[in-house]
């Protein structure tokens, strides 16, 4: 059927070593990706309260209908879900995703996703070549790094190292040929030893970094998944898809190479961008590199190999080292399969401990790491190796940052000051909930740091740079609010959705913004794969009157591929459904409203530095609506009010149709979403929200 789906989902039971199939049609209403993953987890996980290392944990690795197509900024992502190992006080049912070419090959192999159950008695890797699926011995791979593992698997699947010619897969002349290397997703060496830190890596640096999924893989005795597809995916309206592609290119430099100086705010979104390029040592020769089907190309490949496919946080933004040092660390981090974001939080914490005299040789936290040279190659290498091998402080760090702080007797103290910057659920502070409210709330009411920059780019970063340079903004705050309200269906009748003022961040409209964001990301970004580097596209210098592609572009691609006639509003409603299903899982896992609090520093410490007598505020310029007018204003130096956050939660729960006392969805809300079975299960567990 020409609808973008392959038609079947692979089901692998590692305990019984059986390979089965689930018809995709059974889950098609959920879109793909995260939607299908949550629904499958709901159906197949006997007990979501188990630890993530329990064989009962169900892992899904899902593509979607747009994977492997020309749906730009959507074709390349793969969504991973399961009970994670990273969050505290317990591992929530969580998600991560990664780019590259894995979901493309999965689709071309004839699969819309992979479901992994149980635990193998032997170390294995999963080998998928079209319809042929086998479990292979991974004993010789288990201690290898992610790069070596992938290259060994390439040679194994193709029978020899790839030679660049057509390889015939299978035994007949028509059984499928390819010039491509298998797409492999791998955990790091002996990842069970640093599970909460362990990521999954595909190619050079496409990482499912957060959540500890490398540790989950290892707990199942699964080292890697390899897929090579020689088939194809039929698309409902190929011509419409081609037109959509060229239409979207008009919103990027891809379609405006000759028109780059168009706007005062600079050229975005650029290919690979100088940001990635500047992470490499000067003089490195580079190319931009992009995931399958992309128009933006946010990574690089270099003539030194190190840092290939890596970008952004992979390059150790908080460590203060030079690019020459960073690129060595980045390469090692990817090879070891370590969560880059945990390292982002670790460096400031270690610097604080050093400044306090609390860590070092013979100190309270005894360590032989070269703390006197924290920006040297040796320090980063030794630190990462200590985590992977459980030596020196690595033994405690490998438990997870929260758990380590707890063991060292410093958890409460360092969370109170923010020296250990874990904003919520033990996840490293990314964007600041004190200033950019929808980010903090989205994390708090969910399962992890959201890592969704939809509002962050246009409402925080861009105005901050405009202000830092005294520029005339591309659009006024009022115009920005108008454009975005229109796009934020179904809340388009609200004019103040991006009011980040002191009052605005606790308001009912911020509750709507937060809810919109949860629903949009669950469906469009995580179920259909629209990438965070391209979408949402709210305000765009190349758009007509600076209006970006969001709310038009997403359905345009989806409908061209699937042949459906789905509206943006309908997609948002599916997102609300997925969000409610996830909420139900967390509730079964023990979530209550009183658990949903930020770390103390978010309430007690303003987002300012504390050097006495020397004022400083980290720049944070956002749109605000105050005294009847819109403006861009610095909202730095804010801290959250505990009671106001609690009141906000009540507003949010009410908006979402959840019991305001507990934060649990009500029967009516769930049944209106077609989730009666979910309501029944929650009721059976005594956790259904009261009407």
């Amino acid at each position: 059927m020409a609808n973008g789906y392959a038609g079947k989902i692979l089901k692998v039971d590692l305990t019984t070593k059986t390979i089965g199939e689930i018809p995709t049609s059974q889950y098609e209403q959920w879109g793909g990706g995260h939607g299908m993953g949550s629904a499958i987890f709901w159906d197949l996980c006997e007990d979501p309260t188990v630890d993530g290392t329990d064989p009962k944990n169900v892992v899904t690795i899902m593509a979607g209908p747009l994977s492997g197509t020309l749906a730009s900024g959507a074709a390349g992502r793969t969504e991973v879900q399961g009970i994670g190992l990273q969050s505290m006080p317990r591992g929530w049912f969580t998600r991560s995703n990664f780019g590259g070419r894995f979901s493309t090959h999965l689709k071309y192999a004839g699969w819309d996703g992979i479901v992994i159950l149980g635990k193998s008695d032997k170390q294995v890797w999963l080998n998928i070549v079209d319809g042929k699926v086998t479990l292979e011995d991974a004993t010789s791979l288990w201690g290898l790094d992610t790069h070596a593992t992938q290259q060994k698997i390439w040679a194994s699947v193709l029978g020899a190292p790839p030679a660049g010619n057509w390889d015939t897969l299978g035994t007949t002349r028509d059984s499928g040929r390819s010039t491509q290397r298998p797409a492999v997703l791998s955990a790091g060496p002996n990842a069970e030893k640093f599970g909460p830190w362990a990521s999954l890596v595909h190619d050079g640096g496409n990482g499912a970094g957060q959540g500890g999924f490398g540790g989950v893989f290892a707990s199942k005795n699964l080292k890697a998944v390899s897929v090579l597809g020689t088939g194809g995916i039929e698309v409902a309206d190929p011509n419409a898809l081609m037109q959509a592609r060229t239409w979207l290119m008009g919103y990027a430099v891809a379609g405006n190479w000759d028109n780059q100086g168009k706007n005062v705010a600079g050229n975005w979104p650029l290919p690979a961008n100088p940001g990635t390029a500047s992470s490499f040592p000067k003089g490195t020769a580079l190319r931009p590199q992009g995931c399958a089907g992309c128009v933006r190309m946010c990574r690089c490949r270099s003539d030194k190999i190190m840092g290939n496919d890596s970008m952004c946080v992979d390059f150790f933004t908080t460590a203060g080292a030079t690019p020459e040092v960073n690129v060595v660390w980045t390469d090692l981090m990817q090879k070891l399969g370590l969560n880059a974001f945990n390292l982002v939080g670790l460096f400031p914490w270690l610097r604080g401990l050093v400044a306090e005299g609390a860590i070092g040789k013979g100190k309270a936290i005894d360590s032989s790491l070269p703390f006197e040279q924290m920006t040297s190659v040796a320090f980063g290498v030794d630190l990462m190796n200590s985590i992977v091998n459980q030596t020196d402080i690595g033994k405690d760090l490998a438990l997870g940052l929260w758990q380590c702080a707890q063991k060292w007797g410093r958890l409460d103290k360092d969370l109170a000051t923010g020296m250990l910057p874990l904003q919520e659920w033990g996840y490293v502070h990314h964007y600041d909930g004190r200033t950019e409210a929808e980010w903090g709330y989205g994390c708090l009411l969910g399962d992890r740091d959201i890592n969704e920059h939809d509002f962050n780019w246009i409402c925080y970063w861009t105005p901050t740079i405009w202000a830092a340079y005294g520029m005339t903004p591309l659009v006024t705050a009022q115009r920005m609010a108008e454009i975005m309200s229109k796009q934020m269906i179904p809340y388009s009748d609200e004019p103040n959705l991006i009011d980040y003022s002191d009052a605005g961040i606790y308001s009912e409209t911020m509750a709507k913004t937060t809810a919109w964001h949860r629903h949009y990301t669950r469906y469009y970004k995580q179920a259909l794969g629209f990438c965070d580097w391209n979408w949402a596209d709210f305000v765009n210098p190349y758009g007509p009157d600076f209006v970006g592609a969001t709310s038009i572009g997403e359905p345009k691609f989806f409908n061209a591929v699937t042949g459906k006639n789905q509206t943006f509003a309908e997609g948002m409603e599916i997102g609300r459904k997925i969000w409610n299903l996830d909420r139900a899982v967390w509730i079964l896992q023990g979530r209550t409203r009183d658990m949903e609090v930020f770390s103390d520093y978010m309430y007690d410490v303003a987002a300012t530095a504390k050097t006495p007598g020397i004022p400083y505020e980290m720049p944070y310029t956002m749109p605000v609506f105050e005294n009847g007018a819109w403006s861009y204003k610095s909202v730095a130096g804010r801290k959250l009010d505990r009671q106001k956050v609690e009141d906000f939660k009540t507003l949010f729960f009410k908006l979402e149709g959840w019991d305001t006392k507990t934060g649990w969805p009500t029967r009516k809300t769930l049944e209106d979403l077609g989730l009666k079975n979910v309501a029944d299960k929650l009721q059976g567990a005594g956790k259904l929200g009261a009407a």
Partner: protein
Amino acid sequence: MGDIDKTKGTEPEGKVVSRREFVTGLGGVGLGAVIGGLLGQGFFTPDKVFAIPASGGYLLVDTKKCAGCTSCMMACSLVHHGQVNYSLSRIQITQNSFAAFPNDISMAMCRQCPFPACVEVCPTGACHVDTANGNVRTVDEAKCIGCERCVNACPFTPSRALWNGADKHAQKCDLCADTPFWNEKGGPGGKQACATVCAMKAISFTKDVPVQGADTGYNVDLGSTSKVWQGFGFNVG
């Protein structure tokens, strides 16, 4: 050029070159100039195997600009077959994340060879020069008997003529002359899907016969050494 053999009375206007010179790409520039001079004309080799007109168009690539997104492969298979399928794409991008730039990506597009081995070996004339579409070298699927001689004859790796195992015929780049799933005019006189979707402008189309033999005829600078590109920090050098 050496070895010009003027067999009286049998050649058309224009130059004659030996097959050996042609296939080995003697001197590169000179041969290209000779071929360029033959644009639109036919020529004979001394053995008079057959006479073919040069293609009216060629794809040029800049492998230093290619970002490996494979959108070209998706577009190619989509417009020709209505499905996205790497194995049906008539342009192949291969990449290795663990290799050093610029050797991490290869772009394999059909060269529309002036002396196409794939056309020469086809026993049924399925692989032929399409005079109705700018002399593009293409496969008439109805005539293809599946012998795969064209696939094996292509002097390049991977072979530019490829086997379609599902529909059981050979196929190759036709510069989008026949794209039933795309409402744009293709062929040498129209648009090519791969170049259209390439966000990096790493694929372009030309009517001029590229220098034959060496890669440099087809792998050209499409801006990878430009100030703009350098300004992005890519330091291609």
